């Protein structure tokens, strides 16, 4: 950090904070609990012999520790967060309030179903929204995140193939796919084959045709794709995939570009997961929890995992047992304990009801408009590999950095000094030095203009050969660039007492 060294090591509002294991002392607790004695008679000889090793801190110390840590984080509430493919949109606080209603937050998952009718009704209503918006007949609610939803979708396809008596071995994914797609397919026991991209950033139909065959179980495609483009040939792709007897899986990570305007069900899709934390505004929480319900076509619906939700004369009912499923249902198994991410369901439904169908559509349109505005404003000073219009993300490559000594990473780190979270960098892999900007619908025009101005100016500096802002950036963040190589060469993954507390840095 530049500037005057301080005595404390802290700098104004920027505080350093030691690991919690270097704070506290024995015999202190931030929770007042009575000291009850218990005997050993019911512990099967398994009473704990050694202490855990946790530090003791009072409540104010604990609060201060986490408040100080929080202040080292960037957040969407604090500024534009243009992280392409991740959709950092505003997280309404109403959602948080409603998810905390005791009827949802304090409801036991195995409470008698008669005591959970409101929760089941809420899940049913969310299912209605998801199936209506996607134009798909069914939805599996239990997957706990996007990648878990992908897995659910691929396992549903696997079960459908088994029911058809077919053993298909290959799943096709475009080279631009999210890493989760090939990982999921491999996880489910399939061999992964890559389909090439065209020069305009879409599926190469000739490559797809040459890979499709009797061994193909599914084609997994993100649409809008990871280059931020709509796959124009969706209907033909669906047709080709179905003609060889395979299923069409859509990665719904980018559904937020088209919700309320386009129904994936009309595009021939058989399964698509929906990241509730992207399209429907549940908070990202520093990396989770998410929720990844999967909408399913008529042909796949019977194979959806347990539990199933039905409505009959006695009200809503969860079917948790394979032996009790309705005629025709052949669930492939269970994705997790209980019934999915209820806390996220409440938030997503609160968002849907707030926005309504008109607001969901407007949000998609604004997201697409904002991305195109960024693309149009910057394509002359940065370099855009593909012709617009784009969908909700504007993709740039590092062509404009060629021979300047400045890399995509340097631009990202310089943005940090300007008070922005960087865009997604080096993804998708099909573009050299990719910078993927997703402004979302949550930014005002003034905010977008300011961001464009900063990037434009940075691009101008690069062009003028002024590298100072880039070299060694960031300078103004809580940390300078961190040594990731050292971290992975000799991993330190937990605090150990050997490492004595340093004096104030």
């Amino acid at each position: 950090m530049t500037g005057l060294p301080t005595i404390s090591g802290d700098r104004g509002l920027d505080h350093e904070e030691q690991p919690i294991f270097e704070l506290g002392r024995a015999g202190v607790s931030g929770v007042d609990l009575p000291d009850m004695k218990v005997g050993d008679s019911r512990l099967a000889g398994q009473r704990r012999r050694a202490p855990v090793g946790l530090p003791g801190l009072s409540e104010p110390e604990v609060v201060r520790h986490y408040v100080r840590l929080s202040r080292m984080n960037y957040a969407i509430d604090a500024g534009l967060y243009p992280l392409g493919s991740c959709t950092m949109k505003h997280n309404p606080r109403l959602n948080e309030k409603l998810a905390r209603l005791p009827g949802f937050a304090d409801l036991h998952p195995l409470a008698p179903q008669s005591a959970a009718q409101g929760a089941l009704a809420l899940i049913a209503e969310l299912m209605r929204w998801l199936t209506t918006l996607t134009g798909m007949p069914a939805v599996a609610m239990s997957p706990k995140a996007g990648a878990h939803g992908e897995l659910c979708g691929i396992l549903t396809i696997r079960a459908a193939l088994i029911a058809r008596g077919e053993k298909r071995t290959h799943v096709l994914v475009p080279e631009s796919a999210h890493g989760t797609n090939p990982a999921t397919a491999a996880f489910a026991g399939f061999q992964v084959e890559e389909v090439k991209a065209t020069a305009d950033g879409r599926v190469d139909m000739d490559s797809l045709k040459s890979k499709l065959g009797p061994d193909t179980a599914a084609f997994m495609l993100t649409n809008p794709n990871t280059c931020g483009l709509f796959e124009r040939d969706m209907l033909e792709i669906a047709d080709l995939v179905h003609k060889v007897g395979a299923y069409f899986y859509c990665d719904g990570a980018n559904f937020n570009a088209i919700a309320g305007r386009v129904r994936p069900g009309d595009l021939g899709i058989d399964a698509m997961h929906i990241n509730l934390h992207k399209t429907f505004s549940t908070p990202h929480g520093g990396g989770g929890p998410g929720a990844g319900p999967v909408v399913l076509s008529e042909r796949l619906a019977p194979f959806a995992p347990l539990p199933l939700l039905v409505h009959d004369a006695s009200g809503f009912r969860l079917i948790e047992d394979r032996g009790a499923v309705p005629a025709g249902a052949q669930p492939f198994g269970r994705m997790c304990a209980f019934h999915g991410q209820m806390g996220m369901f409440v938030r997503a439904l609160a968002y849907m009801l707030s926005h309504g169908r008109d607001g969901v559509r407007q949000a998609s349109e604004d997201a697409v408009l904002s991305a195109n505005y960024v693309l149009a404003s910057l394509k002359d000073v940065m370099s855009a590999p593909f012709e617009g219009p784009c969908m909700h993300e504007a993709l740039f490559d590092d062509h404009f950095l060629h021979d300047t000594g400045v890399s995509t990473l340097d631009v990202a780190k310089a943005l940090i000094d300007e008070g922005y979270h960087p865009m997604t960098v080096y993804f998708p892999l099909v573009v050299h030095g990719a910078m993927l900007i997703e402004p979302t619908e949550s930014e005002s025009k003034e905010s977008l203009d300011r961001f464009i101005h900063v990037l434009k100016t940075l691009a101008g500096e690069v062009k003028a050969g002024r590298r100072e802002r880039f070299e060694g950036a960031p300078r103004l963040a809580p940390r300078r660039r961190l040594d990731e190589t050292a971290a992975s060469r000799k991993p330190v993954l937990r605090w150990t007492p050997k490492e004595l507390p340093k004096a104030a840095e």
Partner: protein
Amino acid sequence: MRYLPLTPTDRAAMLTKIGARDIDALFRDVPKAAVVPLSNFDLPDHQGELEVERALEKLAKRNIAAGAGPSFCGAGAYRHHVPAAVDHLIQRSEFLTSYTPYQPEIAQGTLQYLFEFQTQVALLTGMEVANASLYDGSTATAEAVLMAQRLTKRSKAVLSGGLHPHYAETVETLANLSGHVVRAPVVPGKVADLISLIDEDTACVVVQSPDVFGMIRDLKPVAEAAHAKGALLIAVVTEIVALGLIEPPGAQGADIVAAEGQSIGNGLNFGGPYVGLFATREKFLRQMPGRLSGETVDAEGRRGYVLTLSTREQHIRREKATSNICTNSGLCALAFTIHLSLLGEEGFARLARINHAKASALADQLAKVKGVSLVTPSFFNEFTLRLPKPAAEVVERLAAKGILAGVPASRLLPHDAAARDLLIVAATETNTDDDADAFVKALTEVLQ
């Protein structure tokens, strides 16, 4: 539309800059067949906060919250008191509305708490390393089995009959893809023979302690038998508070620990989101799934943290990754780590003792009700009773009296005739003596 800052004037100016006639022009790549007028969506239009609150409050009121009366449900999800500071802190914008810490210079807050969380999980379980969390206990268990299959290059997973049936089903769904799963018989309140099921093809043995009926298991004999055949022991814990009073799995020979962390810091939430804890031995690190925060230094030599060993993960390794997981349960892990920090060594141990004391007293009271017997000789804060009637029926009748009496074993084991009369009962620090008395009285009435 309160969440959308753009005005019609802004939109028009932006379209002009783009050179598009209207918004439809930006969607020109969408096939016509898939463009739908708004009226085709049979859904309501936008509403104000007040209307949305009313709609969801109405649904919330149709549920019986655990805190609305005496409640004794457990079986993998437990009601504990969460200090007010926890929910306040996790709602700070910088935690709630940040992304995965891929830009470490502006995500040290998240990275440091994950590093501390990993340390706490390793300490609690008695293991050497822990990851930054998985979705929940059940998926963590499934990941543990897959990891054991990779490590041993063997296919068979032996599951104890005391493993939560939802966990067993989750494991079966995944582990049968790459191998096969053998479930040992369910014998509530007894130690069934697992050791004879371990053979040269066994990758792992999965044992839950306390088990789904609440019974505490000695893992050492199973660990020894597994290791003798070159198999791994996976220990599962669904009530992590138990480790404040009983021996951690790491001290009993476990190779991998998969646990549910919901009890610390997190509410019941009708089953999710929860937080999966995952710990193992250092030598197995490279096969461990999930994110890891590691300590390093920055360009000025200051201590800092980064996501590390990501060459195991899907965004780098794609189809060769150890798992397809692309998330952790970040905010739930934060709630866990804050609550545990508040408790500290002394508070955590006290909490565990209170739970055991409450459950012991309740078990004694209930076992005196005519026709009722205690099935589990040992337990932490959860035990199983045999009733003279089908437990599901009794639970419904008690629910009508405002008492959530526990989880009937038949809900989890619908085809097991022996489970029909068994009731799984949990007691925590949240249950008062009055709750216990009301339960005993109501049960006595219902059984008459």
